[in-house]
């Protein structure tokens, strides 16, 4: 079943060892959301637990239960809006101490190893150091820097690379028949099929267009409209910040290499914005990137920060 995983050779090789029973220590899989981390782990677990044909369409009870997330020995824990707290980790540790019921081992997939609270991460250390004999841990993280070093050192690391654009495009064509739009969504996904499909499904080009409008208003020094537009984005501000980062990247490279821009459907707008000195855009891009990094895990008043960095270069 691991053969279903594409373009992640390192991950597949590592997980193959788990399927063959040669990997007992915890594993940390690092990569952007939607590049196949969870999919490949679940494929590996299915292959290890399978009592049937070991083919992707195997109808055996184990495969069916894992696919439908009802297998009693497979636990998938995901960080929601909040970080993973110590109580949740204690629950996982408690479960890990129990014997498996249907399979030979219990597998714990924790999606959000970079989103443990400090207390939660520390609570898990001892279990990761000496996992119960019949428990296997798979930790998934988007950013290695945000994983506690003591957790990193206790896990075997696998890095998942962004998926090739052609592959993302081919997957995306199932949902978006328009080639130009599909290309934009694929590039907006930055090598992640999951993100690209999600953006496509929720029509995120509208938000992207609002980001363009925000930049045009900042250029025109139209503070009231700019502030009002940013306020309307409200729930989508974090994503808008990502799109802003991408648009600024495009403004900086559009003259040099227009084929590489993410927002390939707005090249004319990008060229028009490129009339403003490059230094202004470069500084702005730097600040947006710094804000994105700073915002993670904090309660910053994002809309105010965004408004400030957008008007600072133009006033």
């Amino acid at each position, binding site marked *: 079943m691991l053969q279903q995983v594409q373009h992640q050779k390192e991950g597949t090789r590592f997980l193959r060892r788990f399927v063959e029973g040669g990997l007992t220590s915890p594993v940390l899989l690092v990569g952007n959301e939607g590049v196949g981390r969870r999919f490949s782990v679940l494929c590996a677990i299915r292959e290890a637990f399978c009592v049937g044909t070991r083919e992707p369409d195997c109808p055996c009870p184990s495969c069916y239960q894992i696919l439908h997330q009802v297998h009693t020995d497979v636990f998938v824990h995901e960080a929601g809006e909040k970080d993973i707290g110590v109580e949740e980790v204690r629950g996982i540790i408690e479960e890990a101490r129990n014997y498996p019921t249907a399979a030979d081992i219990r597998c714990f997939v924790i999606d959000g190893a970079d989103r443990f609270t400090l207390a939660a991460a520390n609570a898990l250390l001892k279990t990761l150091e000496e996992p119960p004999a019949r428990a296997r841990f798979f930790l998934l993280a988007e950013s290695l820097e945000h994983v506690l070093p003591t957790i990193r050192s206790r896990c075997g690391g696998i890095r998942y690379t962004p998926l090739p654009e052609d592959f993302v495009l081919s997957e995306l064509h199932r949902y978006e028949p328009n080639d130009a739009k599909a290309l934009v969504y694929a590039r907006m996904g930055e090598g992640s099929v999951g993100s690209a499909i999600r953006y496509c499904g929720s029509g995120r080009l509208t938000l992207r267009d609002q980001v363009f409008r925000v930049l045009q208003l900042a250029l025109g*020094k139209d*503070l*009231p409209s700019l*502030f009002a537009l940013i306020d309307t984005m409200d729930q989508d501000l974090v994503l808008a910040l990502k799109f802003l980062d991408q648009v600024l990247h495009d403004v900086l490279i559009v003259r040099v290499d227009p084929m590489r821009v993410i927002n390939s459907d707005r090249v004319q707008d990008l060229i028009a914005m490129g009339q403003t000195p490059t230094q202004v855009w470069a500084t702005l891009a730097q600040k947006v990137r710094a804000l994105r990094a*700073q915002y993670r895990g*904090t*309660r*910053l*008043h994002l809309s*105010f*920060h965004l*408004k*400030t*960095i957008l*008007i*600072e270069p133009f*006033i």
Partner: protein
Amino acid sequence: MAPKESSFRPFVVAFGGEDFFLDRDIEKALQAKRSVLRLDGEDGLTDEQLVTFCERYSETPHMIIVDNAHKVKGDKALRAFIEAKDIADTSLVLVVIIRSEKLPEIWSLASSKGKGVERKKPKPWETDSYTDFIRLEATRLRVVISGDVSALLLQYVGPDFYRLANELRKLAIYVGQAGTITKEHVSLVTTRTPKAEPYQVAEAVLAKDSRLAMNLFSVLYMNSGDDANIPVVRALMKQIEKTATIRSLLDRGVSEEDIAVLLGMKPWPFKNVAAPLARKHDLRALVRHMGRLCKLDADVKGPARSKRTLVELAILGIAE
């Protein structure tokens, strides 16, 4: 002789934002000559559990008090129970306390079959509501208090029903039954609590009155400690953003009336408060202050030390 009509109704629904009166409603219900069962919606109570309790206790005279009833999960079973309830059947009285300004539809239905009371929280400037309360409370405690003394007490204590009730109880003990509370009694017994709000600090900062701003901030700090930092920074952000918007529109030559309409403000406060504040600053300086506040926001929400000093420095920096 016609039988005496029962004063009970099957449902008593009290809702609103003023906890003091809602707590009073609970106290009053507890004094009823009935067996009382207390439940709380915050404990994960479901409508099915509530209906089970109601049905179990409906044989004998009982009273069930449900606090935080807006947090009861589900309403299907409850709706059926309310709809089936006979208005004349008061063997069970369900007292519902909703600590929210909005009355959920299911409880609105219940109040239509019983009694509904709104416990609205008066705004701090609606002083009549507070002085009326002081007079009523004084009557309840069997003491006499005149209008100007009530106003003085409110000035000393602030718009807080819990504190007003407590201070009145102290005063009633001091003057004795049927005694009259005078201004001297108030000065003697009541501790004066200075009050300040984050928006007042922000307004003083924008008015460039650093002395007033610092005084208000220290009052806030005295009352709330470190918890005062974030609301003050938030208020400063809001005020500066608004001022920058007004200033940019003024710079473009938009008339004051149009700006007031654009910002949804009434003309008088705009002309006399907001516009003069905006004229005290130029747009560049305001943008610079926004940058400073961004840094401050990260500092007060992060692990920085001496957060109070950082806020004070920002206040002085902007107000200078």
